[in-house]
């Protein structure tokens, strides 16, 4: 890790990871971008010590989760995922239909499920690690993960779109 400028190093290495996490947590492209900015600037303003890249990444994800909570409280929070939102953001998003629809469902997931689903499915953290990161007990994380999956599955099924069939089968 480059100690000279941890924030820059972190941004180059994990900028997109934080963006995706922030999108999964907030459900909004524009807010995800704001969160990326806030997370890395706060690291720049208040440098931290990290033992490893993995530790750094965990810190960034934790910070993104906290930022999302603050957005929620600040009433800027809205779990929407509109094309307008995307157009006003600088985030690049490939418009593959299947991924896009799945992303809309991800965006619509309640925050409590979105966090555990992202940390488990995208980042591959174990239930124990997620419990540790989110300060929840393991049983809670396990049940949130289960319910989140069920909710996502139910919402995809409701869509009833043929292109979702493949995804539903994997749930």
């Amino acid at each position: 890790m480059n100690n000279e400028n941890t924030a820059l190093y972190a941004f180059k290495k994990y900028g997109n990871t934080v963006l995706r996490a922030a999108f999964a947590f907030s459900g909004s492209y524009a807010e995800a971008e704001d969160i990326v900015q806030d997370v890395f600037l706060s690291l720049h303003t208040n440098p931290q010590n990290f033992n490893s890249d993995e530790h750094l990444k965990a810190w960034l994800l934790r910070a993104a989760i906290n930022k999302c909570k603050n957005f929620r409280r600040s009433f800027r929070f809205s779990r929407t995922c509109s094309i307008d939102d995307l157009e006003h953001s600088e985030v690049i998003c490939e418009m593959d239909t299947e991924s896009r629809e799945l992303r809309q469902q991800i965006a619509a997931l309640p925050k409590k499920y979105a966090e555990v689903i992202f940390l488990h499915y995208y980042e591959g953290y174990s239930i124990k690690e997620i419990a540790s990161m989110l300060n929840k007990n393991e049983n809670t994380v396990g049940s949130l993960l289960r319910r989140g999956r069920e909710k996502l599955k139910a919402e995809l099924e409701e869509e009833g779109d043929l292109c979702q069939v493949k995804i539903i089968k994997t749930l």
Partner: protein
Amino acid sequence: MSSKDYKNALNDIRLSSDFCAKMEKQLLKSNFDDDGYEEVENHVEVIENKGFKKYLAAAAVIAVIGAVGGGGYMNLRGGLGSDAQYGVESEVEEVSSETKNSDSVFDFPFASIELKGATFILQETNYGSIHSEVPVVASYDMAAQLIEVFSQVNWNESKSVTYTVNIPDDKDDDNNSEADELFTAINASLNGETIIFNYVYSGDYYYVHMYESGMINVYIRSTDNGLEKELGYNMTSEQYKEIRTILFGKEENKAFFAGINADLSGVRYAINGQSGTVTDEQAKYLAKCLKEMSDTLLSEGHKERPANEEPISLFIKDDAYDCRVDFYSTGEAFNKKMINSTNEITERAYMFNPVVYSDIKNILAGLDDIPCPVDVADMDGTLLKCTFDNKYNVYTLDKEQLKQLQSLLENCNWKPELYTTAIMNSSAFAETSFYNNSIVLKNKEQFLFIYSGGLAIYSDKNGTASSMPDIYHIDGIDQLISETKAMNSKMTPLNTNELINRELDICLSGDIAEVNIRGTNYPYTESGRKIPTARLREVFEGLEWEEMEFKEYDEESDPYSDLYSQYDDEDGTELKLYVINETSIYKVFYINSLGTYTNQETGRGYRCTEPEKVAERLDKLYEEYKK
């Protein structure tokens, strides 16, 4: 859903090059203007989100308490570690035959290995990916104890090897014991816990993996001729546990917090000028409490300790280092460590939620039964709110009734409760309906909340965030409920208007109250405005209130979700939430621009007449008292 689909959907999102360029430019600025940015992470609460859910008042209390520490309690525990993190630079011990000490050498069937000084790594694996690694260098004593256990192991070779596993085609055959054995081996290598040690002797590399099930796999590679060999053995799972305890201590007693990574049983402590040794039971509680909570490593420059405070100190010693960890009630910990081999001394500071301090204090004090710690007999102007059999009533109590209630409370068994237990496990909330069978007493100076599972939260310190309330567990809650019910049957409940006015009396009891507005145009970061309570009183004068239909919140919803969801209205109406005394545990009063007041202790909602007038008056006051 499959991890792949999920990943693919998100992987399509990325930052634009313009955004990256702008960010990189900003991050390159070395002389960063500190005033230009808010200290975000250090002011982010991690645990507060547990508050304001279905546990309402209790959780609200805890949430406010949680915010006192103001910490971004980043978890630095071993779960995300790497070898480098723990100072393990080499995976393989290399020991020459000359340095061997026969007392600490064990003759394994595959080699004689010096155990003293060998690095053992406790590795946790989840579906094939390594999630944590904790190394330890075996001391002479550990080596002697390990030899005792290894001597009991039956070293007959087994077929279970994990390095080159080929699942036979007839795996489905029920009688194929070899396939089953291999399948078990695969599972063991992919999931669960392993103790690993690697060793080089006479040019041969030995990789020894011991699994929770008792399976032992040894992989040997010769550097001379490149020959590879795999061996399998079995010990019992009890023998594995013994080895684990010798090397890594009892898991249930281990704490990972503020730089501590140790079994706390037998550790010396000092508190209030007295010292003692942590018992096995206390170690279990401490480990449980510390495991539940997170800490944040502060910068190396953080040296200043809280003035005029004797910390709670733990003195931890092992072969590698001596350390002293001081915990302060402010939520700061200082870990001063001396590495034995080099005499190098380091000190690092950590930040944590102050509730941990309170828990450590209570655990070291014993967590025994105590006399009733609350005194409500002289609570003037007390509101008693009871929700029994899902019926909710509020009363004011006279002197005699308060005495009677005090006597009922004294008949219960009281003991200190840990915040971490109350927050994390919610074991105190036994009932499915949170509000049912709850008793709340409050006046302008004191409050006592008792919840159905027996959790009691009490403060006679004005309920401000800076004075943490005490929390207890009550045994005998059923008796208390039935006797309070009997007492209530002889009392006359307040009507809705009286109730709200009493709540406002409590909320506006000081000279000044802090008011925040939450809404689209009001940034969350803005601190509250100080407004004289007399002026706020005028806002609510002459209003009539009616109770709204009660809604029990469940796992899927909470009062806050409702409040927030109102802002998603499609008609474009800008809704606002006025919060009076947000930082107070029980003087807080929420009313939105629709005139809806929600009582956090009972979950009941009330609507006032003339909401427009209330909103207009509050807006005007808020503007008038602009800083």
